[in-house]
């Protein structure tokens, strides 16, 4: 089967790749583009470890075909910090120790960023519901929720 040639934008950069029709966007990011920040947890859309933004929508990259990225814009965890300067969410995750093994962290950060862009002042309940599609087996979620709320406070003040 011939490979599909895809032209897309990843973290603001024009990117081209070849993929098999069955390859997911997650496969392409990790295996073709060497952007390994997005993780494969469940590969069935349940855990959120592969969360990315696709044309401004939060999605699971494991449930998108690589070929679907044609002409669209993808944002991954690799685009979150500005050079050496961490995004406030990334900083707050460190300050609150909102991660242990770290596999879920990129997905949580992408999902939390999408929330704060839509709702800069979420309640704890809103944070918990928004992040219900991101699973963490280490932290018990509390530290993550506190980190997101703290980042939201800081970002509103700046």
């Amino acid at each position, binding site marked *: 089967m011939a490979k599909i040639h895809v032209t897309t934008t990843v973290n603001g950069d024009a990117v081209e790749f070849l993929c098999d029709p069955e390859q997911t966007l997650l496969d392409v990011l990790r295996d073709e583009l060497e952007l390994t920040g997005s993780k494969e947890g469940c590969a069935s859309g349940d855990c959120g470890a592969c969360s990315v933004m696709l044309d401004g929508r939060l999605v699971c990259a494991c*449930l998108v075909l690589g070929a*679907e990225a044609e002409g669209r814009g993808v944002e991954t965890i690799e685009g979150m910090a500005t050079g050496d300067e961490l995004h406030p969410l990334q900083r707050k995750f460190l300050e609150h120790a909102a991660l242990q093994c770290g596999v879920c962290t990129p997905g949580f950060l992408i999902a939390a960023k999408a929330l704060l862009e839509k709702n800069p002042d979420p309640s704890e309940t809103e944070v918990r519901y928004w992040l219900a599609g991101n699973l963490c087996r280490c932290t018990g979620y509390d530290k993550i929720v506190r980190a997101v709320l703290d980042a939201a406070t800081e970002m509103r003040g700046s």
Partner: protein
Amino acid sequence: MRYEAPESLDAAVGLLAGATGLARVLAGGTDLLVQLRSGLIEPDLVVDVKKIPEMRRITAENGGFRIGAAVSGAELGEHSEVSRLWPGVVEAVELIGSTQIQGRATMVGNLCNASPAADSVPAMIAADAVASVVGPAGRREVPVEAICIAPGETSLAKGEIVTSILLPARPPHSGDAYLRFIPRTEMDIAVVGAGVSLTLDDAGVCRAARLALGAVAARPLLVPEGASALIGTRVDEAALAHLSTAASAACKPIDDKRGTIDYRIKVAGVLARRAAQIALERARAN
């Protein structure tokens, strides 16, 4: 597997009708990709319909709204006019999966995946929604309750695609609601789902009603006896009790890890009543 993303409906129908092996439509992909990755299906052709303009739109039509087959749950939820006219349908769609799933999943995909437990389907059936189906023989309009015929099976013929759903106009004093029971607060499959839509006259008497149930039979059910229990009443305690009895009586559920037969039958009655009470409050408020 061949991947195609045609830009016209004719091209999509042509591809699907001409397919020699297994062909699948890709809208949001939140069911298809899971089936693909788990090896449950091995399609020879996947037709991505997201580049077809009419599939991507929500359009006002004769006082109602036509929802394109590739409109995501997130996009539908952000459409304030649809939410105002059919709050129960929009809430049902928004119950499907996580924020990430909402970014992709579509109402038509939920319908065509043909799960008896699909959340949006009882709400659509209660709303008397109509699916617009296009195939090699042209276009036909099909009531939503006639699409899913068995778990994972639809009444669509080879080459046919559901292109949109029409949520019809409604008279004043109308309301709808959908409730599901799951043992958690989020991210689960319905043990039972119940959708109710009703219309009152100026005196507060119910003049039209529809009840639909999910996850209590091999397909989502329209329950005409539920409607009969409400029509002509003021949706008082006695009418709600009749509705509840009618809902339970219509159930032909299975026993599985999510719920027993007895439990589902009981919960269907409770949810039908509660959904009717919410629909009633909404009808009185507009």
